[in-house]
């Protein structure tokens, strides 16, 4: 007699209306979206990302075609490599590799016999076994913070995700991590060299790769620098990130060099290379508007050692005082990325969308700097002696006799494309 009542009673995981759990979730999210749309409609004056207009460089109408033509020319030209020299360098590197392998193994955290230093997982396992990960200098989040979703970046920066993060355990394993970095660097160069040797065309001894005309700045480009033939020279687009952001934010002062900053911060007349690298990474973090812990991580990755957070905070404050327009620029852009949250009825910055937009805009402008510099080289060279053989984001590779006026020509052209901007160009 109760069968029909029992039939109507919702089962576990089933909504009273008869739908399953997924139906309830779908209905709830649709309701949330409807409410959000209502809020947006009710506040028409709210700034939206599509209303944001950044400054744009003054480019020729056929800029894209010119760049495509240049890329084809660079690809067709290729880079000439001396196979015998590459082979010799490769065997020298292999000797260094076996020596650094033994050196790294002689340190405590690594199992002398079984740790595979070429594998990140194997090294991480050795570090875990040695208890090094417990000593990472990042505080644990409290339960209240975890519940309220506060300080999520702490969990992200505590992790060791790649060999670039070994520095986080350097405090407990100083010699081990130093030896590990040495091995990793040698191994990466060796493997890249091995690939390079297979790319060389036996017919003309040249390498034809899209990478050379890509305008990118990847790990491969960094490794290529080690293997470049000595007969070539480079045009360095120094600190283009700083130049681009100063131009975007209309900062009137000249972009600082990392050496100048290192001199100021470390009180040394001639700062070491390590100091310069550290100052550069602090400047880059400031320019990218990174948070406290992201700055700590970025600086650590660049310097391969832990930098005291107190020092980082002081340097960031110093940069904030010197260049207030950068902070103002980010504040203005962030206004377009605030999103209302229904749970707390407040507006919060949509951090991923904001970061994505900034990173995309900066990458595009830095790419534009490299393209304009490449086109200037192309225009100021004889048709039969085209010197550009490689274009990357931060440097150009040229062959032949260096033209001393080239840096000035590129600077002048960039000043036309980015009116009011200042770009530092060097020949190396």
């Amino acid at each position, binding site marked *: 007699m109760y069968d029909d009542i029992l039939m109507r009673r919702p089962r576990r995981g089933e909504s009273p209306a008869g739908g399953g759990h997924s139906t309830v979730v779908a209905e709830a999210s649709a309701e949330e979206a409807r409410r959000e749309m209502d809020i947006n409609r009710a506040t028409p004056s709210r700034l939206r990302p599509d209303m944001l207009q950044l400054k744009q460089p003054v480019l020729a109408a056929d800029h894209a075609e010119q760049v495509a033509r240049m890329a084809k020319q660079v690809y067709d030209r290729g880079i000439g490599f001396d196979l015998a020299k590459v082979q010799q360098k490769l065997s020298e590197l292999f000797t260094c590799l*076996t020596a650094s392998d*033994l050196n790294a193994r002689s340190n405590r955290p690594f199992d002398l*016999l*079984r740790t595979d230093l*070429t594998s990140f997982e*194997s090294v991480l396992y050795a570090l875990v076994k040695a208890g090094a990960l417990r000593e990472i200098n990042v505080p644990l989040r409290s339960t209240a913070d975890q519940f309220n979703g506060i300080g999520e970046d702490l969990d992200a920066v505590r992790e060791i995700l790649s060999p670039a993060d070994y520095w986080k355990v350097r405090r407990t394993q100083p010699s081990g991590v130093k030896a590990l970095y040495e091995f990793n660097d040698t191994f990466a160069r060796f493997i890249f060299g091995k690939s390079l*040797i*297979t790319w060389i065309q036996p017919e003309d001894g040249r390498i034809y790769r899209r990478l050379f005309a890509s305008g990118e700045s990847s790990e491969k480009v960094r490794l290529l620098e080690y293997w470049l033939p000595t007969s070539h020279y480079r045009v360095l687009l120094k600190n283009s990130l700083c130049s681009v952001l100063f131009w975007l934010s209309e900062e009137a002062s000249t972009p600082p060099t990392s050496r100048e900053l290192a001199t100021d911060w470390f009180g040394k007349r001639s700062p070491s290379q390590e100091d310069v690298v550290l100052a550069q990474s602090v400047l880059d973090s400031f320019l990218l508007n990174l948070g406290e812990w992201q700055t700590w991580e970025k600086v650590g990755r660049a310097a391969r050692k832990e930098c005291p957070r107190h020092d980082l905070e002081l340097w960031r404050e110093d940069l904030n005082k010197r260049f207030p327009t950068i902070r103002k620029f980010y504040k203005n852009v962030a206004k377009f990325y605030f999103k209302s949250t229904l749970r707390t009825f407040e507006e919060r910055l949509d951090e991923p969308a904001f970061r994505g937009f900034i990173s995309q805009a900066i990458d595009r402008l830095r790419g534009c700097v490299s393209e304009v510099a490449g086109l200037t080289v192309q225009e100021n060279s004889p048709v039969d002696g085209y010197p550009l053989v490689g274009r990357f984001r931060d440097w150009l590779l040229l062959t032949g006799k260096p033209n001393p006026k080239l840096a000035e020509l590129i600077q002048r052209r960039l000043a036309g494309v980015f009116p009011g901007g200042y770009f530092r160009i060097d020949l190396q």
Partner: protein
Amino acid sequence: MRPTIVFARHLQIDGRQFHHGEELAPDLLAPEIIKLNLDRGYLVEVPERRSLFRIFENLTPAERRLYCL
């Protein structure tokens, strides 16, 4: 595939010093000496460790042609 053979102690063979943890290069020692030391436990096969020497060995025919140039 050739296994990774590693010295499990310091050894001196034919006037040459080998260190604990060092990988044995291919064709450096005669097969009978390798076998003897493996039996003694002075040398061990470590399959979980990638051989550095194999990076040179493991070439495609095209790569081999280039190396021989």
